[in-house]
């Protein structure tokens, strides 16, 4: 039982750590110039595009067996 407790406290410790990191870096420190805003928008669009490509491939493999 103490081992299980220890494991749980470690896992929750990890979650606490993640929460602390999220709080620490909540606000981006970089000044959001128009160029920075545009770059981040581009990266978001690019990410969506890559995910769409992957999902399309996934559908091709699983549904159409291509």
């Amino acid at each position, binding site marked *: 039982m103490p081992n299980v407790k220890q494991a749980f406290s470690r896992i929750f410790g990890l979650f606490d*750590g993640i929460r602390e*990191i*999220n709080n*620490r*870096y*909540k*606000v*981006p*420190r*970089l*000044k959001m110039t128009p*160029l*920075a805003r545009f*770059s*981040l928008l*581009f*990266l978001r669009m*690019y*990410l969506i595009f*890559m995910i769409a*490509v*992957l999902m399309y*491939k996934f559908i091709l493999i699983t549904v159409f067996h291509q």
Partner: protein
Amino acid sequence: MRGLTMSIWSKLYYYLHRAGKFLKIFAMIAGPGIIVMVADNDAGGITTYAVTGAKYGYSLLWFLVLLGPIAYFIQEMTVRLGAVTKRGHAEAIFDAFGSFWGWFSLLDLVFTNFLTMITEFIGMTAALSIFGVPAWITIIICWSIMGFMIIQGRYWTWEKIAILFCIVNLIYVPAAFLIHPSFKDMLGGIIPQLPRGGITNYFFFLLMADVGTTIAPWMVFFQQSTVVDKGVQEKDINWSRLDTGIGAVLTVVVAVFVIAVTGKLLYGVDIQSAAQAAIAIMPINKYVGTLIAIGLFDAGLLGAVCISLASSWAFGEVFGWAHSLNQKVREAPWFYAYYFFDLLLAGTVVLIPNAPLVLITLFVQVAATTLLPAALVFLLLLLNNEELMGKFKNTLFENIVDCGIIIGLIVISTGYTISVVFPNILH
């Protein structure tokens, strides 16, 4: 007459003294740039060059020579960012762009690095299988070497061992000399030209693959973390630039000489990997075949060490764990634990019978391409932040060159990924 002789001797002494001092300072600061650039020629890189040589002979040498400056300009930015901010790239992204982009970069890096590690182990096992070494023994050898390299608790020791492996990576140079390639043809290949057969889809595919192996996301994270761990200061930036420049030259030299070998011995032969190239060369010249196999093993080993360290450093920076190679295992347990976990897991996956290794190789490219634009764009934005970089921020010239390179890399790596995911698109 005596005065003149004295003057010559004193001048000679002066220049030798200066050269000695120059070399001494360079030897102290050099390391991260050479290691990252040579490690860039990992198992996947050597395979791409070997295939390029076998397919197109020397006619694409000019393109590989062009990739040297591209790699230099990107990596030089990481040197300045690391030396000025004293932070690794993962931490810098969290701090500057917030937790969403921070987590995205960290998790994508870790995932991509893990998959890339598997491909390094595939390369190493394939290389030693040529000598009849079973895969499980190769994996144990790799784990032992990689563990020994970092267990010392001294950055200096790790760096010098890594440089030794970088020197072994130059094994392709004597391999090429053994087969007496036509240097006239090689020089001719440095002049931009189209290969025999003209522009085909496969030609584009190989060009994109060559670019894809030149700049990988882990390199950005790795060099910045190494610069920080080594303690490179702002005053050392020019020395680090020289270190990176020499590394870029070495990476091109290795690529050119791999092509020199396969371009001469396997021109027109259909090969899919560097291990296949070594096997095909064995009957022609067993020494050259052996050197190619040793080089492939070394490339995989160096790549695996650097990639695993890049992930460990990134985790350490973000989670606030002790994360220096100058710390003993008991002082930085999580940092070393992650390093070994990565190595053990990647090696074990390769040993699993019927593991989907082809699918893994495919996903490496996809995962790397989702991260590369973010890592490069963040790098550029950070380098333009005056508050952060002060007098070391990008100049107009650097911005023009870096922007051009980054846009080109994003377009090419995206094109490469799409052609890997949808192979029929180019046919």
